């Protein structure tokens, strides 16, 4: 790679990361507004999540010593993993895809966010944190089951794991594979579930577990944890958008605008769904995700037979 090309890739990656970090709390603000409107409330301002984060960031670390140093380091590491993932996945710029890794690297980085969160929470010494941690781990196991089958179906069809050859997964015309449509639908469901939305929002579960994984975090640590979770949610939606639709046709500015609009639309749809759901019991959530796996399993079997 020549020097200027490397610089352009680095710039695009930085832009993607900055975009994800900025937009994720904004989208959360939009969702809170939508939910409030459905419930006939005025709701907080769209920037409210950002205001909260800024307030918390300025407080520094505030919390207990925990059982060992990992409790304190976890939110920072989770943020590191989330930012790295957002640099690899094309979001606002379609460019810079996969300079450091392919789809598997991306999936693993996103999964590490929840792994690190769960480890940190369970190292706090709080029983709520421990329960939140194991719920987080269980949720990621169950959603990985559905996601792995869907991604295997897509990768099998393309014969590659590189982001540039996988995006978009659904291709019309000669390269059309019916299995890819089912697989992308399954990815959509997993993106919803793994984005910790109701009824899947079991690790934090404010009413039951008093914030679960975040219970013993305060100040900047809590902000980092929340921010990383929101970034991860945005990345899951972005992965879905990249898989479902072609984005190569647009000029950079149009692409950036269209992508942002799509993310916002998806957020609105998700928050509308959320506002009619209650939180599921863990066993119910596992069963629900197992059913999603049926869909992606069908896609996988079809893909294995070349459809």
């Amino acid at each position, binding site marked *: 790679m020549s020097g200027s090309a490397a610089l352009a890739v680095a710039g695009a990656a930085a832009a993607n990361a900055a975009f994800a970090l900025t937009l994720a709390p904004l989208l959360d603000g939009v969702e809170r507004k939508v939910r409030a409107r459905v419930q006939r409330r005025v709701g907080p301002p769209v920037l409210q999540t950002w205001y909260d984060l800024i307030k918390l*960031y300025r407080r520094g670390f505030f*919390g207990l010593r925990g059982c060992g140093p990992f409790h304190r380091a976890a939110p*920072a590491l989770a943020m*590191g993993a989330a930012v790295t993932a957002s640099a690899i996945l094309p979001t606002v710029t379609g460019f810079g895809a996969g300079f450091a890794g392919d789809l598997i690297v991306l999936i693993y980085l996103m999964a590490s966010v929840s792994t690190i969160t769960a480890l940190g929470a369970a190292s*706090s010494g709080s029983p709520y944190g421990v329960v939140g941690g194991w719920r987080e781990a269980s949720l990621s196991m169950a959603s990985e089951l559905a996601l792995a089958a869907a991604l295997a179906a897509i990768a099998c069809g393309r014969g590659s794991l590189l982001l540039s050859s996988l995006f978009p997964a659904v291709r019309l015309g000669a390269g059309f594979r019916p299995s890819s449509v089912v697989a992308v639908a399954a990815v959509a469901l997993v993106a919803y579930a793994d984005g910790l939305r109701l009824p899947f929002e079991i690790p934090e579960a404010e009413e039951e577990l008093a914030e679960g994984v975040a219970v013993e975090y305060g100040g900047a640590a809590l902000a980092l944890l929340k921010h990383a979770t929101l970034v991860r949610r945005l990345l899951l939606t972005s992965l879905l958008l990249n898989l479902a639709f072609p984005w190569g046709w647009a000029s950079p500015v149009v692409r950036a605008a269209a992508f942002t609009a799509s993310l916002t639309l998806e957020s609105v749809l998700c928050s509308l769904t959320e506002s009619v759901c209650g939180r599921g019991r863990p066993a119910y959530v596992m069963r629900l995700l197992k059913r999603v796996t049926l869909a992606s399993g069908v896609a996988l079997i079809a893909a294995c037979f070349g459809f």
Partner: protein
Amino acid sequence: MSAYNQLPTNVMDLVFILPVLLCIASAITSALLKRGLAARALISALTSVASATMVGVAVARLAFGIEIRLSLSVRPAYGNSPIPWPLSSVSFAVDGLSAFFTLMLGLVSLAASIYSFSYLEGIEKEYGLRSFGPNYSLFIALMYLVLTTQDLFWFIVFWELMTLASQFLVSVEHRRGAAVRAGLKYFTLTKVLAEFMIAGGIAVMILGLPKPVTSFQGVALSLHALALSRPAVAVTAVSLMLAGLAVKVSLIPLHSWLPDAHPEAPSNVSALLSGVMVKIGIYMMFRLLLYFLRPSLGFGAAVACVGAATLVYGTFMALKQVDSKRLLAYHSVGQLGYVALGLGACVTLLSTSPPHPVLAAVAGFASLYHALNHSAFKSLLFLTAGSVERVTGLRNLNLLGGLGRAMPLTAASALIGSLAISGVPPLNGFVSKWLLYASTLTAGGFLTACGFAALFISAVTTASFIKYYTTLFGRPSRVRLSGVREVPAPMLAGQAILAGACVALGLAPTLAWRAAAPALTSLGLPTSALSPAPLLGLRVPGVALNSPLLIAALMLPTAAAAAALLKGRLAGGVWGCGATPPPERMAPPASSYYEFFEHEFPWVYRVGEALHHAFVEAPSKALPKLLKGLQNRFETPSPMAGALGYVLAALALGLTIAFAAGVIRP
């Protein structure tokens, strides 16, 4: 009658023999000294130097291409040889494949031997070192000989001796009933199935060519001839050999000895058992399926599918465990499933029409790389579990907890090991799993389905290690633990070596690629399959790309920047809804972690148990009453049982070797 040994003639030959000599010296001195600081120091020092020499021998081959060859034979000046032929000569060569596995052995045994110096105190006080010392030293030496011999007959001999030494090591704490039972179960299962391997091996050695052959090259020719002349016999022989190897690799349904034997052994031995010995079966499978035999779709697919089944069942069983070392042992079963899947995929991809040599090489490399990585992180985890057991006297994850503050260095090592086996980037488990997915998911057909299972099980592994790490070091303990402090420096050093290996093998996959390339070349796989990516990364052109160092370069500075925000106060204790209950009442037990997840997949457990019952328990019920009686005798631990065990095992072994030597006549 004058017989002369053809003595090693140059320096490299001496270097090759040195580890064996050092281990023998360690065995003799420890048997003589029995106990005391000097005995411990001698065992530790001699086996450490031996292991370092093994690493040297391996690196000489892998980095500088120096291939040591050594033949020893007893040749009479005149008349007939006093020793019949297969026993009278033995040849060794450190080729690419041998060197790769020798590197693995050297690395783990170096760490375990350094660790032993302090760890052995407990065993020394209670049991003395007369049984442990010789068996430990000879076990290491025999693994080295198994890996380097180029002769199938001697492979079998050394293999059997290695099994024998390891059996004694498993039940070295002979006053504990569980240890004796586990050793016996291990020995019975591996011994019975090793007879299959011996039968298959003998068939291959004597049936293919007009004259029996024992060298690896000869065996390859012989098997090829046999496959052409009598294919059914060839298939049977290879299947028998695979069954004998599979029990050592602990592939389902022959896995059941491992979760008993590995936890009951002392932890430095568990590290060697899980880290190295089980992989020696993989080593021979590589030779058998890719060197002796032309790539065969049937065997490749069988190994891949059994591997996939093993990784699912092993890891699901691990999820349920509440004994720290038993959990690790079940994960060894699961991780060896990954290794076997890589090997099976490699063979399958070579034997399809048209063959896919590039993906096959990637799968073969993934298998070798994961085997090496597993040696690093699983041995590390066993050593840290041993440290915890040493300090607290407990292995029960339901009770243990909160050790992170008293044992920060051990906790850090265990965390590195846990993250590595979970595949958190940029540590080593992540890279080898990635290669496995790259070769299986894109291959199509049943390999994609196997790759899907591997990808899913990776999440289960992660969950299991979240439990493992947090119950040991994270959440508070459920019993009062007193006198908990960090373990002595030699134990920390042993852990640090392996933790360093986990990080280095993760950040620089090109290092592993360099190490494995000679092995792949010696098996006829193309080394052009992978090309370098930015910053020591790897690329499978057009298929996959991974640059762990670049990921680390992005992730760690970001995390450091984020951590800069975390300066500030520590305040208060854990929130307990207003009350302040004692910490041990605030800790949920390990068994409750994934209950509702396990409940959703009851069939995984049922199918695994049914397979095990059909292949192992039902046949073993048909064992003669005599054997049953013997087994019952062993179950009550007594000095007599131990001595009887030695005699019987040695007898069984001697008979086997004599039989093999008797059948293979020139």
